[in-house]
């Protein structure tokens, strides 16, 4: 899933400081699952913003909505009837959400309430970790389905570098060295020779480096 964090209150307040009435929109997709943009977080942020505004001696009206997904226009469309009643819309979806809203409602002012971080999963409740960099050409089959592109600080295809110590990455004690894990797994499975193979230069065109990406599946296009 896409993992996000909520922006700081100061940053959000600054964005909406000129508005009196905003629509706060949550998303039932990834951001609900990572406990940052679902109905509960919408209620909480709404309340926090109102309290913060009250402290300034001004009023803020917030209406709360949570739609199925902000990355599908059909769902975004559900907001159309109400959208003009507000000075601005604050989106609690990943970076996709505010953009879909902006495209659907070109005359409305749309703001993001979240910082979108990475593709990952929860390793325990409250801790999410990155697993995929979305590079467009998956190579993890070379590495026992462990991705050095996303999980090595240097994206090494031939690791581990000399900074690997006690299974940790040189950049932090809190970061596992994925190469250490790859090597150990290969050793356990007695397939270390896989790591004697030279890997070709990676073609980064499929990643963001190749410009904004699209996925077109002809058979689905009507």
């Amino acid at each position: 899933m896409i993992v996000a964090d909520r922006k700081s209150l100061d940053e959000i307040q600054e964005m909406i400081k000129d508005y009196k009435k905003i629509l706060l929109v949550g998303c039932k997709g990834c951001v609900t699952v990572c406990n940052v943009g679902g109905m509960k977080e919408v209620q909480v942020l709404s309340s926090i913003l109102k309290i913060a505004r009250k402290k300034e001696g001004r009023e803020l009206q917030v209406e709360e909505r949570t739609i199925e997904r902000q990355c599908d226009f059909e769902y975004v469309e559900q907001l159309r009837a109400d959208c003009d009643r507000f000075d601005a819309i604050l989106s609690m979806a990943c970076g996709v959400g505010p953009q879909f809203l902006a495209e659907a409602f070109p005359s409305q002012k749309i703001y993001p309430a979240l910082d979108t971080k990475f593709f990952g999963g929860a390793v325990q409740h409250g801790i999410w970790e990155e697993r995929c960099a979305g590079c467009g050409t998956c190579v993890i089959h070379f590495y026992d389905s462990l991705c050095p592109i996303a999980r090595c600080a240097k994206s090494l295809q031939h690791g581990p570098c000399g900074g690997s110590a006690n299974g940790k990455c040189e950049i932090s004690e809190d970061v596992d060295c994925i190469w250490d894990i790859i090597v150990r797994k290969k050793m356990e499975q007695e397939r270390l020779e896989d790591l004697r193979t030279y890997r070709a230069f990676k073609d980064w065109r499929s990643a963001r480096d190749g410009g904004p990406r699209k996925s077109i599946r002809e058979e689905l296009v009507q």
Partner: protein
Amino acid sequence: MNETFEPQIVAYCCNYCAYAAADLAGSMRLSYPSNVKVIQVPCTGRVDILYLLRAIEDGADGIYVAG
């Protein structure tokens, strides 16, 4: 804030411990300011952060979660 400021304080108390403790304070005839109002919850785990925020929105000056 002036001398006569009377804060309103909501206390969410776990039924099993803090609420019982508040009862005990009564049996022992301890004295505390009357501004504290206790709301019984089955467990402090039931105290949603939203309640705290809404209470402040409504005008609470302080919130006490005890369990």
